[in-house]
């Protein structure tokens, strides 16, 4: 009886471990132009097409740069030149579509097509800038943030 129980639970535990490891990937870079980088735990990685994006990453672009990312919930997020975007939180349950997507645009420009998280619950996606907090009730929007020009 007990061995049957272990035989049942062990694969479940293993499967869970695999799922958690895969869940670290929040999205993948699909477009990249000019100078563009990902900062991950103090390291700088080139933001090339195909590069995985994780929760906690900061994506930055130079004066000629831009990056486009498709997230696991099919949100499409892209930034223009001289931009800094932090992926503060990304949690997505592919069965229930529940979770959370928090991002901060510190400077620059951002284009978003929201995905399954925002569709499932209007509170799930939040975008912050140094001046404002955005609540996303779905679909497509643009953000520009920065100090006033003289």
């Amino acid at each position, binding site marked *: 009886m007990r061995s049957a129980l272990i035989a049942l639970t062990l694969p479940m535990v293993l499967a869970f471990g695999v799922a958690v490891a895969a869940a670290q990937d929040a999205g993948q870079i699909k477009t990249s132009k000019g100078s563009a980088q990902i900062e991950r735990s103090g390291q700088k990685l080139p933001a090339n097409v195909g590069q995985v994006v994780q929760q906690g990453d900061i994506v930055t672009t130079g004066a000629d740069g*831009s990056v486009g990312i498709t997230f696991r919930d099919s949100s*499409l997020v*892209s930034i223009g*030149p001289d931009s800094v975007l932090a992926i503060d939180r990304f949690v997505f349950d592919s069965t229930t579509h529940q979770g959370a997507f928090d991002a901060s645009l510190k400077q620059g*420009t951002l284009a978003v097509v929201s995905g399954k998280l925002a569709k499932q619950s209007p509170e799930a996606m939040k975008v912050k800038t140094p001046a404002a907090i*955005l609540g996303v009730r779905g679909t497509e929007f*643009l953000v520009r943030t920065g100090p006033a020009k003289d």
Partner: protein
Amino acid sequence: MFAPARQKTDSLPVWARNLVWLAPLALTALVGCATRNDLYVLLPGKDGKTGALTVESEGKKQTLDTPYAAARVKNVGSVDGVKSSEAEVKQDFGPALEAQPKRPVSFFLYFLADTDEFAPESKALVNQIFAEIARRPAPEIAIIGHTDRVGAQAYNDTLSLRRAERCRDELLKLRIPKVRISVAGRGEREPEVPTADEVAEPRNRRVEISVR
């Protein structure tokens, strides 16, 4: 016990204590000229539906819910509703819009009741799926199983996942180009045709292959 802290405050020179009171006045003076160049714009959705966006800065709030409705934040704590346009958006956000990834495209394969067997008409779709994969940079496919509403939710979660896995195995047999594949079971949560519980509906027994 708290005496040292208080002494420290008292020991500040008079000009420093006045500075604390002057700071909000200085801020008020700044409000006249803009300190921020922030712009938030709601776009019409490509699917014809326009969503909504709330923009909140220190308690001031605007809801944008029409195409090209926009908000300017010139100072923290002020949100001005304005109207943008397609032309202005291109000028202000051109490179970010050009960098947008291609939109995901979904294909649907259908199944025989309570099985993971393909309905015959679904087999022809596979070539279309491969062609879509070939058109994309760093392509991924998300394979998402669905069921009709016959059976308990937990049972349908398992069945939908099994259908998705079956699809993945079939695609792998066909030497699909090397791509990232994820598999999910949505159970009966997302019917293509809404029905009452326990209704058999072939159009809901399907697997979605989202190429992105």
